[in-house]
């Protein structure tokens, strides 16, 4: 049913429909509306879950670790500083192969303190073993939660997922969203029945320590499962499309890509602006296209290389920066295109909530056309 609703509320509603048994909650801007909505659902009996009001984010994810290991579907949400406080638990949850789902309302990292959007927070956890989905709009932000639970809990995967959607830009924006019914979601998402859990009837040990004789193999297995998740996403996406019409089977999405000479690569809500800019540039006869990355982990290197093979030049937009190196996406794209002669330039932009508009996208296209890039875009030089 189509509803005009705030992004956070739409996400909370999607989470409710996924029937998590244990939700842990800690407030942090701009995520807080999600856990507030979930608290309301529990208080009014529309969500039958244990709702744990933890004392910080480290405990939020730790409680999910315990609940997931005990065999319950779990959920939490966070952003920025909160996610950073979970750093250690993130690696731990993935290493223990626990299919926890967390929504990340993407926000910049301090210092300086900023509550506004970029994607530095989740990108900083790219090595932790979590799947990372990035939504362009609130429809996708909600749908990706159903997909994430399906994929994460698949016995071939058993890894946790971030569902990332841009803080404020999506989380606090009202958009029309087609909400699924409980019946729909129940059809799509089976009950969580892990083969192994903490259970007195069949005692096993979770989270043992591994000597150098075993550690490397643990990491190999986890990496293999994460890479293998791509196929599971494809299947889960296909089934979702068959039932509800929207297609999330591919880890990337092309827009005006077929004959594009200049291709912009980006993630998240900025892609809506890019698409509008492309429409205007196309009207002027410019052959510009977009490759949107929906799944950042596992990184879809083959799909990126295949999608970009006809491009004359590539401009990668990063709302993050690996300080001392480059944006995370441009590094991945360059790796995917290794050996090709297509020039790839990176642009770090929109950090800490700096607006990115159509004119900026057009300017970046001009820059890449003249070979300028690998730079911060939009600096206010007068305050440097």
């Amino acid at each position: 049913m189509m509803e005009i609703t705030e992004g956070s509320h739409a996400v909370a509603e999607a989470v409710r429909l996924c029937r998590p048994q244990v939700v842990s909650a800690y407030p942090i801007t701009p995520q807080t509306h999600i856990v507030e909505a979930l608290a309301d659902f529990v208080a009014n009996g529309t969500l039958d879950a244990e709702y744990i009001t933890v004392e910080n984010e480290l405990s939020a994810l730790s409680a999910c670790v315990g609940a997931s290991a005990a065999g319950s579907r779990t959920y939490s949400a966070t952003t920025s500083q909160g996610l950073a406080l979970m750093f250690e638990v993130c690696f731990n949850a993935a290493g223990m192969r626990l299919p926890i789902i967390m929504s990340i309302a993407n926000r910049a990292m301090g210092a300086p303190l900023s509550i506004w959007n970029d994607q530095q927070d989740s990108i900083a956890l790219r090595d932790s073993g979590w799947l990372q989905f990035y939504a362009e709009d609130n429809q996708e932000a909600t749908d990706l939660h159903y997909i994430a639970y399906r994929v994460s809990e698949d016995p071939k995967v058993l890894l946790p997922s971030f569902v990332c959607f841009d803080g404020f830009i999506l989380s606090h924006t009202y958009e029309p969203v087609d909400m699924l019914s409980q019946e729909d979601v129940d059809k799509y998402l089976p009950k969580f029945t892990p083969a192994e859990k903490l259970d007195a009837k069949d005692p096993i040990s979770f989270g043992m320590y591994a000597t150098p004789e075993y550690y490397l193999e643990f990491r190999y297995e986890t990496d293999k499962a994460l890479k293998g998740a791509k196929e599971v996403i494809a299947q889960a996406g296909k089934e979702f499309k068959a039932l509800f019409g929207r297609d999330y089977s591919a880890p990337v999405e092309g827009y005006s890509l077929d004959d594009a000479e200049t291709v912009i690569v980006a993630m998240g809500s900025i892609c809506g602006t890019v698409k509008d800019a492309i429409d205007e540039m196309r009207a002027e006869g410019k052959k510009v296209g977009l490759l949107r990355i929906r799944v950042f982990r596992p990184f879809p290197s083959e799909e990126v290389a295949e999608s970009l093979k006809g491009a004359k030049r590539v401009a990668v937009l990063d709302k993050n920066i690996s300080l001392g190196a480059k944006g995370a996406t441009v590094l991945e794209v360059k790796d995917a295109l290794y050996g090709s002669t297509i020039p790839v330039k990176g642009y770090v932009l929109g950090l800490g909530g700096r607006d990115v508009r159509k004119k900026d996208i057009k300017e970046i296209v001009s820059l890449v056309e003249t070979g300028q890039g690998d730079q911060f875009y939009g600096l206010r030089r007068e305050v440097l």
Partner: protein
Amino acid sequence: MAEKCKTCELFDSGHRACGGCGAALAARLVTKAAGEETIVVSSTGCMEVFSTPYPETAWKVPWIHSLFENAAAVASGIEAALKKQGRKEKIVIMAGDGATFDIGMICISGAFERGHDFTYICYDNEAYMNTGIQRSGATPYDASTTTSPAGSHSFGNKRPKKDMPAILAAHGAPYVATASIAYPADLMQKVEKAINTPGPCYVQVHAPCCTGWGFEGDQTIAIAKLAIETGLWVNFEMVDGKVTKAKKVVRKPVTEYLKTQKRFRHLFKPKQQDAEIAAIQAMADRNAEKYGIDIKLKKE
């Protein structure tokens, strides 16, 4: 006491603890008292490492270790999951004093304030032993550790032990107790009581560490006993914040305890430090008065 498990062993032999390890004995006694319908949550530390070198485990009950500081939060999640699934297993946390007094303090405070139903056992060997004997908030006054070494300008650890039982009682914990591996029946009774009391309960178990404290492995029990007999460790119970019971003793001077361990050697050699020993004796005297543990011998 725990009749059902007098014979069952849920913490198996073959683990990698030092001979004479007080913590390993604590694990054995606690699991015996808790029984098979128990899920154990461990923090990072000696016990976690010596009991679970992959692919071997000493635990015959379901067991999970996540991180150093988060056992209480992990247990909170397990408790919530069991509740939702209608399961009846009991949850027992086994964490060292570093994990409890220091790094896990926030998680513990949150979990106790929320009132989850679990039993938190701190096996207290009074320093970070797994990393090689560094002081923690549980290290006693004047103990020499690798980060509070005795030297020409230092008598060792400068602060007395943090009063964790009082802190947790102040959180409203319905049952808080201290116990010692030297008194196994008492320890098991307290664990059983904690497990059968709804809400978050805390049992702090004195578990001497032969490697960290500097004594022979066959002296563990004797030294644990001396701690009680000198009043430097008091075995007591608190119900709803009030001390209801404390083990009474005919007290011995603290030197009888201090002299047995290398961590206090500097108080006696090269010369006896009378002022420091008097300060430690005064701590034992205060303990004795606070908990009323002195047995007064009748004068004939």
